[in-house]
């Protein structure tokens, strides 16, 4: 009995100590509201140059507490459930729309934003956030095709329809995402990537199933690793993933089909949980400065929506048609809208059935 009591006391002591440490750490990182010189930034992993964090602290005095997520949905769930005090976060386009609709975002006070004029007007005032009431663009990119010139002649794979060519039997790796895979099929059928017609969706699913003999695998982030290791000749994935793969394998190239594709955005927003608004505006303005945005773009390797920052990038990057497509292609790119619960599920069901069509 004595031993057991002792054990219990010991456990309680440990728990108490852990709780104390947690409280202390929370105060340090600013989850606690009493410390005012912090910015709680909730961002994708490795999505901000660490040198810029130091620079930001030096310039403004705010310390950045950087927490990461790995999917829009994970971020959404955490913010929706509350108990957090993130000042800024970086959702993608359709998620901004969804969070906006559910009143999870605070409108931005444009009078406090100093860098608005630096942004390329083509990347402002988009369907998911009219007049940029809630968000400022952080990075943008496309959906496209990576190919390996060791296995595939570049001329043969310039358009989405080429993916159905019998030449590429069992050569294609497809991104494991219902929206993106179906977008490819919808575009080849001259439909919108936000199509909400049962017939069109069924047709897109059928078209996708016709691609199955060419599909080697349906995977996610691993695509960049597999492509860098020469595992497949062709992959359908995002420009950001492509940039990383190309860094590791000079035989890889990225194509955005000129007939159109998806244009995606990661924008900075202020969630309802924000407590350090002054710090948040300081960060928004800091990241709007061309020099900082350019440095971040060079570090991350994604395309910057900041026109003045783009002008500061090395010529080879600025003129790289893979990641900064020409105006005509850009004009044909489409942004995803939030489909709503019912259609999100319909898209996912269609994609699941496509994946099952192996058997």
């Amino acid at each position, binding site marked *: 009995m004595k031993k057991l009591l002792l054990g219990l006391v010991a456990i309680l002591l440990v728990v108490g100590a852990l709780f104390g440490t947690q409280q202390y750490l929370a105060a340090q990182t600013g989850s606690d509201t009493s410390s005012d010189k912090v910015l709680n930034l909730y961002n994708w992993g490795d999505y901000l140059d660490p040198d810029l964090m130091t620079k930001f602290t030096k310039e403004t005095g705010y310390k950045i507490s950087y927490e990461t997520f790995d999917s829009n949905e994970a971020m959404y769930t955490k913010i929706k459930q509350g108990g957090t005090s993130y000042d800024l976060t970086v959702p993608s386009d359709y998620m901004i729309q969804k969070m906006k609709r559910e009143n999870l975002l605070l409108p931005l006070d444009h009078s406090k934003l100093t860098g608005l004029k630096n942004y390329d007007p083509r990347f402002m005032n988009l369907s998911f956030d009219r007049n940029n009431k809630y968000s400022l663009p952080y990075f943008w990119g496309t959906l496209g095709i990576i190919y390996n010139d060791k296995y595939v002649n570049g001329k043969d794979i310039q358009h989405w329809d080429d993916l159905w060519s019998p030449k590429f039997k069992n050569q294609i790796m497809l991104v494991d995402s219902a929206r993106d895979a179906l977008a490819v099929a919808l575009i080849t059928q001259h439909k919108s990537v936000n199509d909400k017609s049962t017939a069109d969706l069924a047709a897109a699913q059928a078209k996708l199933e016709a691609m199955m003999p060419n599909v080697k695998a349906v995977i996610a982030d*691993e695509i960049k690793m597999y492509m860098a290791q020469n595992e497949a000749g062709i992959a359908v994935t995002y420009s950001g993933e492509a940039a990383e793969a190309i860094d590791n394998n000079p035989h890889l190239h990225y194509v955005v089909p000129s007939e159109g594709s998806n244009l995606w955005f990661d924008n900075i927003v202020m969630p309802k949980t924000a407590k350090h608004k002054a710090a948040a505006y300081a960060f928004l303005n800091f990241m709007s400065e061309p020099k900082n945005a350019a440095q971040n773009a060079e570090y991350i390797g994604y395309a910057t929506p900041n026109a003045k920052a783009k002008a500061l990038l090395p010529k080879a990057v600025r003129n790289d048609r893979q990641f900064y497509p020409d105006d005509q292609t850009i004009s044909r790119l489409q942004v995803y809208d939030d489909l709503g*619960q019912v259609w999100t599920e319909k898209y996912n069901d269609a994609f*699941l059935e496509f994946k099952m069509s192996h058997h």
Partner: protein
Amino acid sequence: MMSKRKQQRQLFYLVPYGAWLLLFVIAPLVLLLFQSLTTQDGHFTLANYAIYFGSGTYLLMTFNSVWYAFLITLITLVISYPMAYLLNQLKRKQFWLLLIILPTWINLLLKTYAFIGLLSKSGTVNNFLGLWGIVPQQLLFSNWSFLLVAAYIEIPFMILPIFNSLAEIDPRLAQASRDLGANKWQTLWRVTMPLSMSGVKAGIQAVFIPSLSLFMITRLIGGNRVITLGTAIEEHFLVTQNWRLGSTIGVILIVAMVITMILTRDRGRQSSRKRG
């Protein structure tokens, strides 16, 4: 008369176990069941189950899950039984057993990535085949590579219980069987194997049940060419955020697991207790 204090003490010992069970086993199960049986506004509904049983896709997926779990269990059993048997004959069996358990100390994801390095087109296996002039083969993204990796990961969980049950068998029983005229195979078949069945059953439980819901390996190694219920649950919780349907599939998996437990429960021991 069992003293009251002793009884109290026993109750006291039960507190941590009971609290654990309530918080981390019963409460989540109840929540799962509740989610699967309610609508967004908390009304009772069977709609989620209607969706599940009305969909050919989900039923096919369920069949796939059971089928692949069965294959994984069969492969591990065929490899593990002889291995556990041989281990028991060795001199330093605890040492050899340790070597088999060692890989379980490594994270599952790391082991999976190691297999990518082995099986990819520029991987070790293809390099080895290349020495004989064989062109690189497509090894990843097939049913076989999925079964290989899944079986590799589950093997220690099959060997361990079989090994233990074999170690518990009194060696004099085998001697007696031979004295009475049975040859080696008869002894194995009629004495050793029936006595080690409890270990085999425990092993089947330990392998079949987790295999039902494997999902990382289906994507990383199988390239989503093998789709199991785990994939659907992941999708409903992470992408479509339809937690209710996700919970429904979860409940169905749990039912499947309970059925497995019932089918493989240790009847032998119960009856011997009755006789005793």
